[in-house]
């Protein structure tokens, strides 16, 4: 499943499915609490397309896509702002595929079989909160608190970063396990729900391997992909609007000041898209370069998305400021992408540090 034809076929299948099932109008009219998490759509996408197991190896029953091919599927979801756990699930399963513990393998098999969904709980840029300790029976227990966990109350499994003797590690926690409290909270961003997750001696599996750094790298790359996909859609929609909408007797898009701003957005986005693509290749390759490219890509792409989404609201004028129009969904999603798992300024400092500056 890596030839160009197969890629295109998979992408087309997903696009057609989403065009049928995830019409933006439908998503905008989902009543609370269905807004922010379309569980029904996710279930269908898992059953019909197997999207939960995109990058789960074929040996574990998954589709065995490369990370790059998985990113193409993610792109189709992201540009429609489909509210669901695909991004975190893809990151989690890509990470677990690089782990060789029995518990990691078991999670992958269950993902392929049962359609497990995941949320990644890190909160800090490159660190970890909470503590892990080994009980007398040799099992791990976690205690601590994670805030702003995306879809944290809805998913099946949480991948949690925690410190063991001061060293950060990754654990898998069953969301329904005792000792796990998940307090759902509405998001500023209508396309995501959040949870505060409180762990109080919650049973956990150590799924370490490449470590929390790699988990964050994959998350950053996925957020970069999500950002440019949504930004591209947002820009295209805005340009389409500017072509038809008239003011002062001419299409707004014929005013040179508007054109130049659109051109600047296109240039910014082109650079971000190339960066996301490069980061996806780096994530797939798994080389050393990823540790610089991943935070770089996340900050560049989320910032580009924010620029495009903010300009989209402005260029739509009054209508872009309404709840009915979708422009605000992109604005809020973009701001969340900037904030989640480390701000742009934090990630840039991380890049500078790695670059020896």
């Amino acid at each position, binding site marked *: 499943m890596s030839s160009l034809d197969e890629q295109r076929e998979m992408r087309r299948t997903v696009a057609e499915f989403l065009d049928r099932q995830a019409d933006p109008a439908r998503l905008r009219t989902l009543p*609370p609490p269905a807004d922010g998490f379309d569980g029904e759509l996710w279930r269908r996408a898992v059953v019909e397309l197997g999207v939960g197991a995109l990058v789960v190896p074929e040996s574990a029953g998954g589709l065995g896509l490369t990370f790059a091919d998985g990113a193409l599927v993610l792109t189709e979801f992201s540009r429609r702002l489909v509210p669901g756990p695909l991004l975190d699930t893809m990151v989690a399963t890509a990470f677990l595929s690089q782990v060789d513990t029995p518990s990691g393998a078991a999670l992958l098999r269950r993902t392929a079989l049962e359609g497990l969904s995941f949320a990644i709980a890190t*909160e800090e840029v490159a660190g970890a909160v909470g503590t892990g300790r080994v009980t007398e029976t040799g099992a791990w227990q976690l205690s601590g608190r994670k*805030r*702003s966990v995306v879809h944290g109350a809805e998913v099946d499994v949480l991948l949690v970063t925690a410190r063991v003797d001061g060293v950060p590690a990754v654990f898998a926690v069953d969301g329904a396990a005792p000792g796990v409290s998940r307090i759902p*909270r*509405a*998001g*500023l*961003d209508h396309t*995501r729900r*959040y949870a*505060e997750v409180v762990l109080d001696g919650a049973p956990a599996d150590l799924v370490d391997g490449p470590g929390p750094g790699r988990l964050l790298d994959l998350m950053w790359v996925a957020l970069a992909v999500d950002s440019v996909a949504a930004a591209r859609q947002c820009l295209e929609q805005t340009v389409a609007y500017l072509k038809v909408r*008239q*003011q*002062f*007797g001419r299409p707004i898009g014929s*005013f040179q*000041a*508007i054109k130049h701003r659109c051109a600047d957005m296109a240039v910014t986005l082109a650079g971000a898209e190339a960066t996301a693509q490069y980061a996806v290749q780096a994530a797939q390759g798994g080389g050393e370069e990823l540790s610089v490219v991943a935070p770089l890509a996340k900050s560049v792409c989320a910032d580009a998305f924010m620029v495009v989404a*903010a300009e989209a*609201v*402005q260029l739509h*004028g*009054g209508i*872009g*400021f*309404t*709840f*009915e129009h979708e422009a*605000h969904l992109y*604005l*809020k999603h973009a*701001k*969340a992408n*900037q*904030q*989640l798992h480390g*701000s742009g*300024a*934090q990630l840039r400092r991380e890049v500078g540090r790695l670059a020896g500056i």
Partner: protein
Amino acid sequence: MDAPHAAVDETFRAEIRAWLARGLTGEFAPLIGAGGPGREHELIDLRAAWERTLGAAGWIGIGWPVAAGGRGASLAQQVIFHEEYARAGAPGRLGHMGEQLLGPTLLAFGTAEQQKRFLPGILSGTELWCQGYSEPGAGSDLAGVRTRAERSGDGYVLNGQKVWTSLAHVADWCFVLARTDPGAERHHGLSYLLVPMRQTGVQVRPIVQITGTSEFNEVFFDDARTGSENLVGGEGAGWRVAMGTLGFERGVSTLGQQIGFERELNTVIDTARANGSLQDPDIHSRIVQAWIGLKVMRYTAVRTLASSADGVPGLEASISKLQWANWHRDLGELAIDVAGPEGLVAVGGAYELSDAQTLFLFSRSDTIYGGSNEVQRNIIAERLLGLPR
């Protein structure tokens, strides 16, 4: 180094300050911090009562001539009023459209009868106004107005639609820019009409905005009627009358507005200090920039006030609008960035937002409404710099 204030002005300041301190207690205590941009939906009835109280105490239209029922207060005193009003956290004014826009318009263009009929209601806070300028499909392009007003008997019948009409749901009257000559184009053939809101021909529909709340409205005129005595400045003079309004405010409320901005900025600084993000050099630098930007706006306002005799108020208003709209939008983004991941989560279940979240979202309207950034730039380029169309 403050705006130039004489001793007599300080007496005035003490008077309004004391009055507000007394006034904003008891039943009116909940009004502190209520209303204003992004919060216009709050405590409507209480704020209406507050308007009447303000009016009864003679605090509405203080800058109007004494003969017209005002106090003839100096520019400096008007500035002081706005400063103290903001400092006290007094509520967003339901009556500001009448006081700031319609009143001065009637004083300049209205007949004696119109002044007699409408000024007292404004001054007493008993009649509230809204502005009927913007339309769907026209946006910031006022000359694109399509709402029609046709002669019918001793009055006009209006048909059309307005948008972005703040407070339309509470207003008694609307000042409307409508096309009375359907054959004329652009800024010709427009008339300025005062239209009663409480009639079957007028429907108000709130616009749900980016914050999930409603503050702007759509107003539908469907055979709405008004009398010919409610035409201001003569038929076809609508453009001149509406444009004349632009220069009235002369920036007296600007310094008061900036006190509100300062309060918002201080909240952002407090949050940044509390959650540690002030240590982030990027956040620190942006906060200092915001602090400096606010000072620059203050110095600009002080200068505008000092030179308003020979300045061009409309152009100064465009410069000021761009300045504050961009500053405030940037402050909104700074506020949400300071809040960090915590700022991604709503305060309450049903999209109840924190101050930082509301600031981030609502400030996006600043660069759009009341003449978008793009329109202001056109005005400055063409009218101030004289660049060709």
